[in-house]
């Protein structure tokens, strides 16, 4: 049964067994840069490190945040 999650505030439907790794890399197109990972991922405000992505299941109602570096003061 498909599930509905939000990614950076936008609603998205996913197949039942999709994990975080597939979402990040295949569906959304985020990829590691030459100098490493340039973004950080949290589900429901809890960080998921890169090595956890493959084994992180996504559940209906999950809120995924993907943050990258910006300039700041």
């Amino acid at each position, binding site marked *: 049964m498909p599930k509905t999650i939000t990614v950076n*505030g936008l609603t998205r439907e996913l197949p039942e067994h999709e994990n975080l790794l597939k979402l990040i890399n295949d569906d959304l197109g*985020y990829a590691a840069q030459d*100098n490493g990972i*340039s973004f950080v991922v949290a589900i429901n405000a809890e960080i998921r*490190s890169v090595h956890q992505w493959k084994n992180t299941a996504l559940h209906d109602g999950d809120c995924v*945040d993907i*943050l990258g*570096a*910006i300039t700041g*003061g």
Partner: protein
Amino acid sequence: MAENVTDKLIIADEEISSRLWLGSAMYSSPEVMLDCLKSVEPGFVTVSLRRQTAHQVADNGYWSYLQDWLQQSNTKILPNTSGCFTASEAIRLAVMARELFSTEWIKLEVIGDEYTLQPHTLELVDAAKELVTQGFKVLPYSTDDLVVCEALVDAGCPAVMPWGAPIGTGKGLLNPYQLSTLRKRLPDTPLIIDAGLGRPSQAMAAMELGFDAVLLNTAVAKSPDPKAMAESFDAGVKGGRQAYRAGVMEERQTASPSTSIAGMPFWRQEAIK
């Protein structure tokens, strides 16, 4: 005071290479930003983090430039929690910043008023306590309230960063009396003026008061010649620090001649007649 005989700035057992700290925002291009950073090598450069699409992550010129340069400079990266209005928001963002930027340093910002961008000092102290517990080196952006600054030190912050004036105003040191009081009452705590500086002379004045460093962004980034302005601030910071160490004279209420009056010819001859 956080200094030794060679006047190094030490915070949380780390040497900070410069007393001028710069923000990375609002530059007209990554190249202009990098020119400024290279010319003064600030002690810290501040950055932040926001939601980004895959395209934004892949095409992030500013961050890409910064990343490459930071690897070959003595400047440290200082993520901020800009945009947070509660302790819990700031804590979450700080944790994500630590993961993204691989540093324990955090410029803790918790805003309490959208109009003035005044820090929410109550939430700030709560957030600082928790982040210190989690191993962060917390540099809190605060008001110049002595009791709040003392609470931040008691919470374990290795330095405190009171504002000179509201962010982006360029008004300089609005309350020198209070800032002097902070310096006197917190003699062993590194104090950094964060926000409100518009001119190098204001940075110099902060350093003359005995502040340990200054952090600014707008005044450099928005200058028609950012690199020259960064260098001017650097000179002001160094001059102010040197003056503070040399010993700035006490102000007096009455005039006092610099040149001796002893031996003055014709001294009040008319009165003698």
